[in-house]
């Protein structure tokens, strides 16, 4: 197999105030995989995500994206390759119109003119928001804003899409629509989530991060049905949801 899209080795990090968030994380994600990153609050999930595109710099260990190490010199290319969709779309959508916002990333990469316009419309088309191109983001519904936030990152044609709590605050219909969009994309996905049914639906593989180390890495079904593992790391299936009683979706 070629080099993994995401290659994290022995990553450790302490915040400037001395709080140690990560204690040697190893994680490999290969092309085309959809991986859920699970873990209780304060496990270091967000800290890990911020290392993937070089916002935070590893204290020890290394991160590489498709073979390219995340270092100061490579930041531009790394940030093109790793697209992060943050939890609150209001943080991500800061331009006056949807078009400007989706164009922001590719324009920073140097795209101009019709190439840029095509990139913007393609990305919006993938999330079904092409009709909203001239609207101000704050006039969209929350679900629509989340989809535009995904488009802003898709417009950079990333090799891996990193989603922070993609289903949070969505109503069930928007949640399902987003799932359909994500499964339809031809891109590697790493999804940070507390929504275990969503992880089960979308991600064949799950990784459990707890207290700054990877505690489990395997098929989502196996992780969610390992009761000892689950309770040891404050992971709980929502009431009424049991993977054992659900017929696995045909696409594994």
């Amino acid at each position, binding site marked *: 197999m070629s080099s993994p899209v995401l290659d994290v080795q022995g990553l450790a990090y302490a915040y400037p105030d001395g709080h140690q968030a990560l204690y040697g994380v190893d994680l490999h994600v290969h092309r085309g995989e959809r991986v859920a990153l699970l873990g209780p609050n304060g496990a270091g999930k967000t800290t890990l995500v911020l290392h993937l595109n070089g*916002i935070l710099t590893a204290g020890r260990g290394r991160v590489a994206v498709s073979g390219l190490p995340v270092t100061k010199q490579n930041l531009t290319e790394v940030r093109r390759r790793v697209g992060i969709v943050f939890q609150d779309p209001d943080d991500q959508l*800061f331009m006056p119109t949807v*078009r*400007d916002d989706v164009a922001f990333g590719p*324009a920073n990469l140097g795209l*101009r003119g019709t190439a840029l316009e095509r990139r913007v419309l393609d990305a919006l088309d993938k999330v079904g928001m092409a009709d909203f191109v001239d609207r*101000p983001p*704050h006039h969209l519904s929350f679900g629509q804003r989340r989809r535009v936030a995904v488009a802003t990152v898709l417009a950079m044609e990333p090799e891996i899409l990193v989603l922070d709590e993609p289903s949070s605050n969505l109503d069930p219909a928007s949640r399902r629509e987003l799932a359909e969009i994500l499964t339809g994309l031809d891109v590697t996905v790493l999804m940070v989530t507390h929504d275990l049914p969503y992880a089960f639906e979308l991600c064949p593989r799950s990784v459990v991060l707890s207290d700054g180390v990877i505690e489990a890495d395997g098929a989502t079904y196996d992780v969610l049905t390992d009761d000892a593992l689950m309770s040891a790391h404050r992971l709980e299936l929502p009431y009424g949801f049991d993977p054992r009683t659900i017929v696995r979706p045909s696409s594994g």
Partner: protein
Amino acid sequence: MGAGHGHKLHYHGHSPVHRAPAHLKLVALLGFMLVVVATPRTWFPAFAVYLAVVVAVVGLSRVPASYLLKRMVVEVPFVVFAALMPFVATGPRVEVLGVPVSEAGLIAAWALVAKGTLGVLASLTLAATTEPRDLLLGLQRLRFPDQLVQIMGFMIRYLDVVTSEMQRMRVARESRGFDARSPKHWPVLARSAGALFVRSYERGERVHLAMLSRGYTGSLPRDGGR
């Protein structure tokens, strides 16, 4: 959450005034205001001409007069101040309706009201006929410092977000029986304002993170990258 198009001052339309390039409108407004302010206060016919010009532009823009008049209430504090001037100013007195008032004060009040009204009306017309985004692009084209244009852009974008956050905090306060009626409740309001400031600051940091993640290096793409 806000509904509809544009912002609260914008009146949607397709008149020649709406379609004129934003940077030309900005230059025209600035030039007009400089001329108005520089005009000696006793050249009364000149002010009539200025008013006619603004009214003509408003007519051309097909923005209803009532729409602009309602929004002119921002000027009220200045009008009140102007109305006081003839009474507090010193100097020779003249009789108006049997009340002795200062002549210099009267002229000053007239100038304040006339110049203020022209300025407010012209600015409102610009705001009513120009989308905020176009205004920013206009400023950018006029080589206005990039940092300031960016700051204004963020202000427009996040005004609604911060306002609704403020509303939610107010609703949460009142839901727990708080009612700001007397000065002894002010400390609570001050703490709320502080919390809002901290939240906005933290949001600023998160926005910055999101920008860096999409390759931001210090300047926004000119003309939206087009």
